[in-house]
């Protein structure tokens, strides 16, 4: 099967091409998911005749600190995110999430933009970005806009980007010193495995040791990425203890079942996402449990 390969030199050019050939092209942003999918089966090509390589557009790979905000170019690799001190210090759960992706090779090729726009329910960076209340910048033929991370997604492997829109930047706020965060992930093996389940947690503490604010975002268990408000509410205003943390963890499991219904995997995922949420919260609070 023939596949065209387009190398746009700017976001504008990429957007034009993507819009012009809408429905028959796929944006290549590292390719660690896309190439595997294209290979899987001709039937899975779903009419893809063009690969539009965003990786060669100059100036899309960067990590910049601007005041309280951190701007991340869409073509920044997982490896760069996992290593860069700005991320490790100000958004450590994102560094952890990116460090858990695949293997060294995949982390060196795969990009945060690709990970986000691929919109896999099992993506590693997305729960961390959602927990960090990240915003996505989309640029297209009709201009640029910013979207809150969860609103970017329309379903598994689907986003709300319009034809010709390219994700150019992800922006997160640096965690303030009163914040604690963690990313916990379970895979079938120790490397090169897709997340079976993951949980990203940010909690903000007051001086009395109470939770001032919480952000809990599980991965690989919700049809669309999002925070779980019921779990966050179970923590806010309270001093974390077995009971409150347990309640928050249960809320995540309940939310999963509420949104997905009981599926073949529910018997497994329900208790395990609860356990992982509990662990993630305690890990964020600096108490390692198991």
């Amino acid at each position, binding site marked *: 099967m023939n596949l065209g390969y387009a190398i746009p030199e700017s976001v504008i050019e990429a957007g034009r091409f993507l819009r012009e050939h809408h429905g028959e092209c796929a944006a290549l942003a590292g390719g660690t998911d896309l190439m595997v999918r294209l290979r899987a089966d001709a039937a899975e090509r779903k009419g893809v005749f063009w690969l539009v390589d965003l990786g060669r557009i100059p100036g899309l790979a960067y990590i910049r600190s601007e005041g309280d905000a951190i701007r991340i170019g869409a073509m920044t690799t997982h490896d760069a995110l996992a290593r860069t001190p700005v991320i490790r210090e100000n958004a450590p759960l994102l560094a952890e999430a990116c460090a858990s992706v695949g293997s060294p090779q995949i982390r060196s090729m795969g990009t945060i933009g690709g990970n986000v726009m691929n919109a896999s329910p099992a993506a590693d960076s997305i729960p961390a970005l959602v927990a960090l209340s990240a915003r996505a910048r989309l640029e297209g033929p009709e201009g640029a806009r910013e979207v809150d991370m969860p609103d970017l997604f329309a379903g598994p492997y689907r986003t709300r980007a319009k034809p010709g829109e390219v994700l150019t930047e992800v922006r997160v706020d640096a965690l303030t010193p009163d914040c604690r965060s963690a990313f916990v992930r379970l895979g079938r*093996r120790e490397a090169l495995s897709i997340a079976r389940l993951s949980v990203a947690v940010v909690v903000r503490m007051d001086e009395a040791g109470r939770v001032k604010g919480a952000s809990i975002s599980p991965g690989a268990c919700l049809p669309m990425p999002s925070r779980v408000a019921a779990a966050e509410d179970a923590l806010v205003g309270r001093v974390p203890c077995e009971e409150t943390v347990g309640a928050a963890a249960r809320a995540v499991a309940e939310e999963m079942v509420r949104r997905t219904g009981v599926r073949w995997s529910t018997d497994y995922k329900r208790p395990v996402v609860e356990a992982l949420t509990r662990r993630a919260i305690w890990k964020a609070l600096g108490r390692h449990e198991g």
Partner: protein
Amino acid sequence: MLFARMLRARLPHARILRVDTRQAERAPGVAAVVTHADVPGARAFGPVHQDMPVFAFAKTRYLGDGVAMVVAETDLAAERALPLVLVEYEELPAVFDPEEAVSKGAPIVHDGFPDNIANHHAVRKGDVEAGFRASDIVLVREYRTQFVEHAYIEPEAAVAVPNPSEGSVTVYGSIQNPFTARRVVAQVLGVSLNRVRVIQCAMGGSFGGKDDAMSCMCARAAVAAMKTGRPVRIVNTREESIVESYKRHPYVMRYKVGATRDGKLQAMEIHILADAGAYASMTPFVTWRSAVQAAGPYEISNVKTDVYGVFTNNTYTGAMRGFGSPQIIFAHESLMDELAAELGVDPLDLRTRNGFREGSVTASGQVLDGHRVSLAEVMERAADAIGYREKRKALPGDAKTGPIVRGVGLAASYRGVSLGAEGVDATGAIVSVQQDGSVYLYAGLAENGQGLRTVFSQIAAEELGCSLEDVVFMDTDTSLVPDGGPTVASRSTTMGGNAVRDAARKVRETLVGVAAEMLGAPCETIVSSGGEMSVAGECGRSVGFGEVAREAYGRGELLAAFGWYRAPKVSWDEETGQGKAYFTYVYGCQAAEVEVDTETGKVRVLRVAAAHDVGRAINPATVEGQIYGGVAMGTGYGTLEEVEIVRGVTKTRNFDEYLIATSMDVPEVVPIVVENPDSYGPYGAKTIGEPTCELLAPAIANAVCHATGKRVRELPLDLERVLLGRSLKAARGRRGSERA
């Protein structure tokens, strides 16, 4: 050169009504479309039953069946023409579960096998009913294993080059057993064996996998080469490889064991169904080894074993590292731990109490003598290295500080060396010394990545007295050496090593004669070592190996020799399953320490001590290499690997979904090489390749049970089986574990 691509079956079980190749033949770049109608000789082949079609005719029996092959100027042209081959099918009811396949009214996969039973092996010793009556405790347990992929580095590849003037063909490829491939190609072409030359290319691995699958590919390439008169190349993608190539058999194993209160085994009754898939392939031999060894390395007076190979419409199953042993060892070694728990004794003590020693009688009535029966030794060595005794004292949940718990467990086995009563067991080699003292070494057995060329070269150098660097091991070529059977059953060092030794000794005799004259000393005083031939005990009276070779060549001496080795006699009575199944045995034990996350079901294998009696380690580094590799594969078998086949459709088609252990998953390995020289093998050497790969899964299952108190009776011990006691793969259908 032409490039070939296969069109495979669209339905797992269907009558082929019509294959229309006309449109594909007219497609750009297409040289030919090959189907069964182009096969000049046998349309089907197989080691026991000749049931596997080179190109499917009449019927498809699994989705890997090749129906037609497009041969074109480029790979792309061949691929593009594939959909133009029109095949009309009539779908037939299919069967995917061996238990269902043997039940009444099940769809029949092969005419002539009305109950879908491909073969049956029985072992009858004593009277099991009397044994159970004499027992204080009787346990019945069922264990199940999964389809497993070999996952060799490079998928199958072959090139066939026709020699039209001679009506012959030369085939190159990633071929485990060149002589087997030659036999199949000759049968399929309908020519004599000497019209087919098979040359093995360097291999990245086979693990038993590049036997029938490669014979089939070689035959397809050869048919196309003869039809077009041009060289034809076929290379499988990984996906094609996983769909088409045979797997390790899933077994359903029902074990009934009886013992007295003091822990003496009285009787064991074993019933096994092995999923043979669509074709018999090696199933009759794989299940034979299972039948011989099913009761484990234990003295049991009363044994009744029945092993059935069962046809289904799943991917066919065949040889894979272990060859019928990993499954039964998972069962009998899990069973020993379960019995120990019921009896309230330590599992190692139960094994020691009942384990084979000198003079023990196996389930097939063979007296273990003539070699050191080292079961107790390997068990103690492995147990000591893992700290089994101290760690075992802790009970499940003891010192539980969180959800992560640790446990230790072990498994032991005995294994017949080489082919045993399976068939002809002999092999050859050629040693040819050149006039400068350098050496060509040819062998009938082939390098499959296991280190054969190193070990054979070492043996040649040792016998000749030249240096190892002087020996060049040549690619295996069926036109140069006598048919030495297949490179299987971990038989290379024992069998092939003896043949190399025989050849080298013959050449050495000539060289010693010449050296004796050159040094003016009697033949019997000449010693050769490290590239020098010298008079024993006389410093300075020596001459270089190369000089002797030059002198001998100048005198017109023959400096080449054939070597041959035939295995000692074995015997087997198919009716009773009694006899001397193998001429010698090896003993092994692997002990594992694991960590189990009781909230997620995640098992981490932390450390494995692997004690294996190899007779004598000719190359200790490669022996340890085999142990590391076997433990790595065993880790995958025990915790990760599972080819999911749902109603005949292979779901796990590449390594993103078929999970093998990565370097991050492989535990720390403590190799323990035990040496009790054997009377048959060269320098006392026996076997190491397969024993390393058959023990870890039950050791892990036993360690997980020690850690958690939960017994998992189905492989692999993945997240769901460990946490919930059952698989959650939507695919699984009726399968599930923890159904005591």
